[in-house]
């Protein structure tokens, strides 16, 4: 799986949260210029994985390489520079600045990181907003936007500095079908037009399969399946198939581990 066209490579990563081992020897590489959908049950650590790639969380052991550089070993300033120039991330709750207008939100990275004249910033911001269809909403504040619009503004902001890698954390959650379709098209469009390496965490199997080049199924701290949607659907891993088909019971049990049901009802103690 390790090839030279990998943009992000995760090697033997272990990560612990308190008592719980979230990743135990995770190995995966994400190809450059492609959309890879990362899927898995809630709470397996998909957000954690994105945050490790972004350097916000450090692996307990192992390496997370972005463009060949180990994110875990970078200094604070190297990390900030990497994120500024090379990475964008769309958070689950979007993380728009509530005290700034839509325009100022998108202008934020440009104002902070460049000395561009105001006219140029204006043009760049309007271009990004036009790309997500919200040029007309530039004077609104985040509180005045619908869920789908919030995501689109956040998307415009995360591509303001023209990153090479963009990570989306559950961008479809809580959206109506139309907004969902828009985001889907935007993710695909950005990937095609700019060649952005895109990592997409999502639970929506159908939608993700439509646009993803590869699927990466994570469960129990490991990658249990990596490949194109067709490969995985027709593959011989029962757990992967259960996940992709949404079967309620299978290798991943419906029941949380518990004592014998009948015994439990009869004992009468809590």
């Amino acid at each position, binding site marked *: 799986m390790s090839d030279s066209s990998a943009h992000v490579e995760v090697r033997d990563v272990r990560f612990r949260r308190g008592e719980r081992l979230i990743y135990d020897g995770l190995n995966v590489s994400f190809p450059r210029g492609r959309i890879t959908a990362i899927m898995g049950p809630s709470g397996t650590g998909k957000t954690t994985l994105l945050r490790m790639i*972004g350097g*916000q969380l450090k692996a307990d052991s192992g390496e997370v390489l972005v463009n060949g550089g180990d994110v875990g070993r970078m200094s*604070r*300033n190297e990390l*900030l*520079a*990497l*994120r*500024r*120039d090379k*990475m*964008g*991330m769309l*958070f*689950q*709750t*979007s*993380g*728009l*600045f*509530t005290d700034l207008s839509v325009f100022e939100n998108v202008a*934020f*990275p440009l104002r*902070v*990181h460049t000395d561009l004249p105001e006219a140029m910033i204006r043009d760049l911001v309007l271009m990004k907003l036009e790309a997500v269809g919200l040029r007309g909403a530039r004077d609104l504040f985040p509180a005045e936007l619908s869920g789908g619009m919030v995501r689109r503004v*956040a998307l415009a*902001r*995360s591509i303001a*500095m023209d990153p090479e890698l963009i990570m989306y954390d559950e961008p479809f959650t809580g959206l109506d079908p139309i907004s969902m379709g828009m985001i889907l098209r935007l993710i695909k469009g950005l990937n095609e037009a700019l060649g952005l390496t895109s990592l997409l965490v999502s639970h929506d199997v159908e939608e993700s399969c439509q646009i993803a080049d590869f699927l990466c199924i994570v469960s129990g701290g490991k990658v249990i399946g990596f490949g194109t949607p067709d490969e995985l659907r027709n593959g011989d891993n029962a757990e992967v198939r259960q996940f992709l088909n949404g079967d309620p019971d299978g290798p991943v049990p419906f029941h949380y581990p518990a004592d014998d049901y009948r015994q439990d009802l009869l004992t009468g103690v809590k």
Partner: protein
Amino acid sequence: MVSQIRSLGRYGVESIQSIGRAGMLFAQSVTWGGPGSAGFRDLIRQIYSVGVRSLSIIIVAGFFVGMVLALQGYNILVKFGSVSALGTMVSLTLLRELGPVMAALLFAGRAGSALTAEIGLMKATEQLSAMEMMGVDPLKRVVTPRLWAGVISVPVLALLFSTVGIWGGAFVAVDLLGLYDGAYWSNMANTVTFYEDVVKGLIKASVFGLVVTWIAVYQGYDSAPTSEGIGKATTQTVVISSLAVLGLDFVLTAVMLGGV
């Protein structure tokens, strides 16, 4: 018994860890500069939001505290026939003690809790994470200007509190109780010294401002990113910083008077 000892031990360890994290936050946010660091305008904006917006409560509280001081002082001093010392008593009490302490306590309630809630909410809504992922250090961008705004604002508020309080005292003493106004003001002018009373009071107030704001930004930055976590952090800010102000007041007073 064992479990109680264990939880006591855990509480101790957690407290020490928390103090360590607060120290690191301070070390990283006390200086300006770095990628995306806040500028002078951010400082001004924060001084406005924590300082200027605390003016009304400081002025009203200062006036009433001054009035009460004069009323109580008059009734005590009149027994010894020394009401002419009233101006001195009111002004020294305010400049040395009540101005810095009351301003800091009011600041903790009015601005400290708001700072904690603001930063906690920015964390819970992933605004701070988003900032990090845009290559901006939230400590430098968000925490630094707020910390300094507190350090700058509290001494000014304390001085204002004392000034208004002295006027409030004069209002009661001169206008209501009929004290000769020359006695109130000129005795004050003769006894209050700039360095011993005003400057030392301001030094105290600066330390209080630093401590209260530090506690407030730390509580916000370290809060659990849930509504419950933010509520708890806000309460903690007010409780811890109030106690810290009162405790530090004793220490600083003892050091400055050189009596202990």
